[in-house]
């Protein structure tokens, strides 16, 4: 039905082209992506008018009308169509009060005219209203844009478009897919296109049995969840041969996916482990090395996260171009803020309480409540937005594994922090002094080490590292006054389990707990999974009270 109409329209367009004088209204940027059909020549006046009529109706239309209009706009074959539709789906198509439709090239401008592409600058002082889209419409728009983008000269655009057509599985795209297949040079895009064709064939049964069997094979080779999804639609088919072939393909895909599932869970476990490691690593110093039960440790993480927020706000106001490196700037800032707070706490509270663990516990617990409420009073009780830079959002496929960028960066980051910290303690003068003081305070003092200063700085170091953890956690959790609370128990668990006073123990402890948790979760559920892990730790501590890697020697209890 629709392809037929499109062909007629193309013919008409061709005739119009011969008759009318070309009026090149499009910009050079729009010319890069020429849609299907023979309309590679400049736009005709009649057609632009047609497009203008359709676009101008968009702002006031209902969702159903918008959907029809979008289809009609796609069929005009105007070179600007792709930009208009993709802006529409992204919510960047906006209208002035007078009904002029403009496109925001970035979130807050600059703008250009939707029809002519005239640059309109920032359009300050003019009230713009977004042309609204809903879910269903957005899906349709993605399909339409993808169909147009299949003929883009840019391979990465085509690759993306091919994936979108697979997801949409819209039978109207079939002719465009065939056409794109015939001239595709990149083998992986061609493969995706064949899969998209297969999915459409299976969904709509548009070809004979042989074609459908071939389609099943194509999807079996693809072998992921989406392919499974398309194949499962066939289990109600009347054709016995088809049904059995699909069923065997489903079985084989499911079998491979099971292995991938285990790998995926292990990866999730490592990712959770790295988060636990980051949260616990500062505590491994203050509690593990110094023996201070610091219940306000979580709040140091929270301070780090809020520092990230403040840094981003300041950058946004002063130097927006630095936003992409805001997290890197935040790392030293968070270290200084949380470390400074740590030194202050050590000098004013904790130093009077050395050797009195119960009092330390109570005092720092009270302190954590004070810090939470202070932050709540200053910044308000609502969550604060911390923007993820582009290089940290999104995900990529590794086989059937979905690896999210933010998580992989956090794994890398936690390893760097651990390595730097270990090197620092081992090879620097201050590190040597710290170890000396914790191993034998009196001896160190008699050797001329200023133990007071070392205590303060070590506590500051542990707090500062917690602050750095806050920078990373701001990417995956809410930046709210309660941020720290959710990590304090886990942090203690990791340090105790790994063995007090040993950074290697913290690493192994965090990773073990993370992986155990994630392997249990699919079977036991999140709540029970956590309980099982806790019981395991309780039993383990009964057997080995000093944790995985116990410090040995005569100074341990000193």
């Amino acid at each position, binding site marked *: 039905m629709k392809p037929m109409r499109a062909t007629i329209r193309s013919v008409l367009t061709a005739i119009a082209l011969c008759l009318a004088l070309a009026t090149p209204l499009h910009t050079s940027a729009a010319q890069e992506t020429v849609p299907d059909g023979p309309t590679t020549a400049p736009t005709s006046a009649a057609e632009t008018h047609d497009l203008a009529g359709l676009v101008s109706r968009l702002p006031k239309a209902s*969702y159903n009308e918008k959907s029809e209009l979008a289809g009609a706009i796609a069929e005009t074959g105007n070179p600007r169509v792709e930009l208009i539709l993709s802006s529409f789906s992204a*919510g960047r198509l906006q209208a002035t009060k007078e009904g002029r439709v403009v496109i925001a090239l970035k979130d807050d401008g600059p703008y250009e005219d939707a029809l002519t592409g005239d640059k309109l600058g920032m359009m300050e002082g003019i009230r713009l209203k977004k042309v609204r889209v809903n879910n269903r419409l957005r899906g349709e728009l993605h399909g339409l844009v993808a169909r147009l983008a299949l003929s883009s000269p840019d391979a990465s655009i085509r690759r993306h478009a091919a994936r979108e057509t697979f997801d949409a599985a819209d039978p109207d795209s079939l002719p465009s897919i065939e056409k794109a297949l015939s001239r595709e040079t990149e083998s992986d895009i061609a493969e995706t296109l064949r899969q998209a064709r297969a999915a459409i064939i299976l969904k709509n049964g548009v070809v004979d049995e042989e074609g459908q069997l071939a389609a099943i094979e194509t999807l079996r080779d693809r072998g992921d969840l989406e392919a499974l999804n398309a194949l499962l639609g066939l289990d109600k088919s009347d054709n016995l041969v088809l049904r059995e072939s699909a069923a065997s393909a489903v079985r084989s895909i499911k079998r491979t996916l099971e292995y991938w599932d285990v790998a995926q869970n292990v990866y999730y476990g490592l990712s959770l482990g790295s988060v636990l490691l980051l949260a616990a690593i500062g505590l491994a110093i203050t509690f593990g090395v110094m023996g201070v039960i610091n219940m306000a440790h979580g709040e140091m993480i929270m301070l780090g996260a809020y520092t990230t927020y403040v840094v981003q706000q300041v950058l946004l106001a002063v130097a927006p171009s630095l936003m992409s490196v805001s997290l890197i700037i935040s790392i030293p800032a968070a270290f200084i803020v949380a470390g400074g707070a740590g030194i202050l706490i050590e000098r004013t509270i904790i130093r009077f309480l050395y050797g009195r663990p119960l009092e330390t516990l109570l005092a720092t617990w009270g302190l954590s409540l004070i810090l939470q409420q202070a932050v709540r009073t200053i910044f308000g009780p609502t969550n604060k937005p911390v923007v993820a830079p582009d290089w940290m959002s999104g*995900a990529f496929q590794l086989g059937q594994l979905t690896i999210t960028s933010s998580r992989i960066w956090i794994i890398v980051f936690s390893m760097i922090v651990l390595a730097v910290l270990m090197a620092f303690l081992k090879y620097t003068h201050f590190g040597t002094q710290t170890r000396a003081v914790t191993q034998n305070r009196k001896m160190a003092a008699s050797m001329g080490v200023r133990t007071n200063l070392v205590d303060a700085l070590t506590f500051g170091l542990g707090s500062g590292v917690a602050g750095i953890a806050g920078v990373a956690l701001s990417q*995956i959790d*809410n930046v709210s006054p309660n941020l720290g609370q959710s990590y304090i128990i886990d942090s203690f668990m990791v340090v105790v389990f790994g063995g007090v006073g040993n950074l290697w123990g913290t690493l192994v402890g965090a990773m073990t707990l993370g992986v155990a948790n994630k392997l249990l979760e699919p079977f036991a*559920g*999140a709540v029970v999974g956590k309980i099982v892990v806790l019981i395991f730790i309780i039993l383990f501590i009964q057997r080995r009270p000093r944790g995985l890697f116990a410090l040995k020697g005569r100074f341990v209890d000193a």
Partner: protein
Amino acid sequence: MKLWKSALAGFAMLSATTAAHADSDTIKVGILHSLSGTMAISETTLKDDMLMLIKQQNEKGGLLGKKLEPVVVDPASNWPLFAEKMRQLLSQEKVAAVFGCWTSVSRKSVLPVVEELDGLLFYPVQYEGEESSRNVFYTGAAPNQQAIPAVDYLMEQEGVERWVLEGTDYVYPRTTNKILEAYLKSKGVKDEDIMINYTPFGFSDWQTEVSKIKTFGSAGKKTAVVSTINGDANVPFYKELANQGIKAEDIPVVAFSVGEEELAGIDTKPLVGHLAAWNYFQSVDTPANETFIKEWHDYTGNEKRVTNDPMEATYIGFNMWVKAVEKASTTDPDKVIAALPGTEVPNLTGGTAKMLPNHHITKPVLIGEVQDDGQFDVVWETDDLVAGDAWSDYLPGSKDLISDWTGGETGGTPCGNYDTKTEKCLGLKAMH
């Protein structure tokens, strides 16, 4: 030292006189919302909302010729403290009515106190139902005013056949999901097409849960997630959905606890297109709502403060109380309780809210899609107002129960849990 003591005495005298003064010509109104602790994020707004409403009422000349005096207490997100503060409001401050609580745990904690001291509580948040007290008026949504219409929308408009019921592990999600499961089954949905899943409070590592949803959603049928995930756990959940490439077009999530306030300030890009079911959205275009938003911005002095559903429920509850007090010409709780059923006040979405004999109100149900500015765009709404139902029609234990505090349908005696089969009132023992 002496100076200090006399200053203290003077201060004590001063406060004693103001208290005496206050007793004579003001009406005290209790506000019981957490201003610190985890719930402060949601409840602080309602406190401000109440203060604004009281100020406006006073500007209009007060109530019964007296000025209203707000009494604000802070239960600090601590459930037992809610009960203590409630006792303080009712027996020491002698407030005429209390507006407050958020979460069913806090309500259940104050319930015995309100009933014992015969107070009056307006509860402004959606809840799981299965409760009816003579002393409590529920101006938030019951499950049949939020959860069930949302499921209907997904089933009819988006053609959903497979369901994930994902919630935080506490009473509201558990009861709501029980009702939804019974409802879905009554609509012919099979066991294997329903997945129910709970996570702890403040859960932030959603990787496994989301990949489970992804797998569940790849069975050749349109799948949707019905989310009763509470508060802070939501943002990491939506972020993970976006990270794993699940778009709202593939697997839409409809949430019952995500509103404008929760979205304020956060990066909403990963949420765009997902749904929420409420009885009010800030984006609703009516003159009443426009006025309300303007007054709110003027009162808070902040153009960016958003309005949300529990604020509207508070607005309705307060206006109903004012109207009932005027009707009864007294603030005596017993008389006001008797005067409240049947009271009608305009809501902010262009309709009229009516207090029903079961102490719930009539509401429209709206389904909104999250937009990238943190607002909701209404995509669907019920044709008529829906009457709140205290006892769900889909649970075996409660489908025969009705609540009527006027006694009209319960054989003359007011009753919160009248069994229509045995024609008996189960009474206080079977409550809560």
